[in-house]
């Protein structure tokens, strides 16, 4: 299943927003963006008992309006709200009700729900882990990614599925976002930077370039 966030290689997006010179560019363009940023960091780290992969997973489950139309930090806000509702910290609709009340509407606000935080604590800080087993692949090995992924929490973008490339680097092992995001365990595993040609990704007519992307061990087929 593809998430709304899986944009790599998609067509129809038009030209890129031209860069604003750095000395004229604000980190937050409106005050609320900074508030939404800080609320997200605090809720994912301390309030909902969740983790960075869970936050990305929440982003990927937003509907298209909540992902695109509310702009970047609105997307963060929406993902935070989703995590807080799922953890039973706030009731569904509580944020909308308060916002409408603040705007002068007569609205009844839902009460505080029963907390339902995931039973979760990380085994270590951050996302990198030690793995005893030697990596299956070495630099220079030819590898092929799986063609199908089942979980909606997967981290294998559609444009690199079922493609063959070469291992450029063996990176430090990571927790596996697909399970970690859903509190099903860290499942630490090796991660490879894999180099693909553009023709492997898009066919013979593609613009000529190469691309490297980090691929989790679970997404690589057995050695040929």
């Amino acid at each position, binding site marked *: 299943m593809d998430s709304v966030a899986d944009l*790599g290689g998609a067509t129809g997006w038009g030209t890129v927003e031209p860069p604003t010179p750095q000395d004229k560019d604000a980190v937050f363009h409106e005050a609320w963006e900074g508030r939404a940023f800080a609320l997200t960091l605090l809720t994912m780290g301390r309030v909902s008992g969740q983790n960075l992969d869970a936050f990305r997973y929440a982003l990927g489950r937003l509907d298209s309006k909540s992902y695109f139309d509310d702009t970047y930090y609105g997307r963060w806000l929406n993902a935070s709200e989703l995590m807080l509702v799922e953890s039973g910290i*706030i009731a569904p609709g509580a944020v909308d009700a308060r916002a409408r009340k603040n705007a002068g509407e007569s609205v009844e606000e839902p009460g505080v729900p029963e907390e339902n935080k995931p039973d979760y604590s990380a085994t270590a800080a951050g996302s990198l882990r030690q793995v005893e087993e030697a990596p299956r692949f070495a630099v220079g090995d030819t590898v092929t990614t799986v063609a199908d992924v089942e979980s909606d929490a997967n981290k294998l*973008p559609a444009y690199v599925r079922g493609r063959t490339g070469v291992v450029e680097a063996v990176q430090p092992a990571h927790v596996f976002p697909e399970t970690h995001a859903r509190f099903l365990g860290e499942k630490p595993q090796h991660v490879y930077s894999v180099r693909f040609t553009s023709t492997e*990704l898009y066919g013979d007519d593609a613009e000529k370039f190469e691309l490297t992307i980090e691929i989790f061990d679970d997404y690589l087929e057995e050695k040929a």
Partner: protein
Amino acid sequence: MSTALNPDEHLDGSGNRISPALRTEALEQLLTERGLVDPNVMDKFIATYETAVGPLNGAKVVAKAWTDPEYKARLLAEGTAAIKELGFAGPQGEHIVVVENTDSVHNVVVCTLCSCYPWPVLGLPPAWYKDPAYRARVVREPRKVLSEMGCEVGDDVEIIVRDSSAEVRWLVLPQQPAGTEGLSEEELIPLITRDALVGVAHISAP
């Protein structure tokens, strides 16, 4: 756990979508009045990324690499450790890999799945990096996208796109412009721009 928010949510009594600004204010109220979030801590987070952690850090790393060949070798071999020598570390910087742009290779960085970015050296990402058009297109037609952004890359230069799909964070070591070889680190730092450290700009001599 897979219940996405209802797309009909976030409407006011007249059926208009409530702005994220108003909903941010509402969420902050709901959490602070229960003591779950401290607005002063929020202020500190915002100030940190508005002032302390930004692309000036990355510029310092690059200026040192341009003027100190031994540092450059360490930076390309063990990016995270070499960057930490200058005091830069923290969230979104667990494992930073530095790649060098040369006469024959041009690296450019993206995160197609979200907006992963090396915060300790560049701060929070600019608007163009988060733009769906950039995320979608730079992994499909990078030379064209770079050209549209004002970064021409010669046909004889190989482009390598780096899609940050895990916790590896990429930093581009741009080419030092000709004629700046005698400048000090302090003189070089103001020339080094954020966009060049992601690979969508070249650096010009003063």
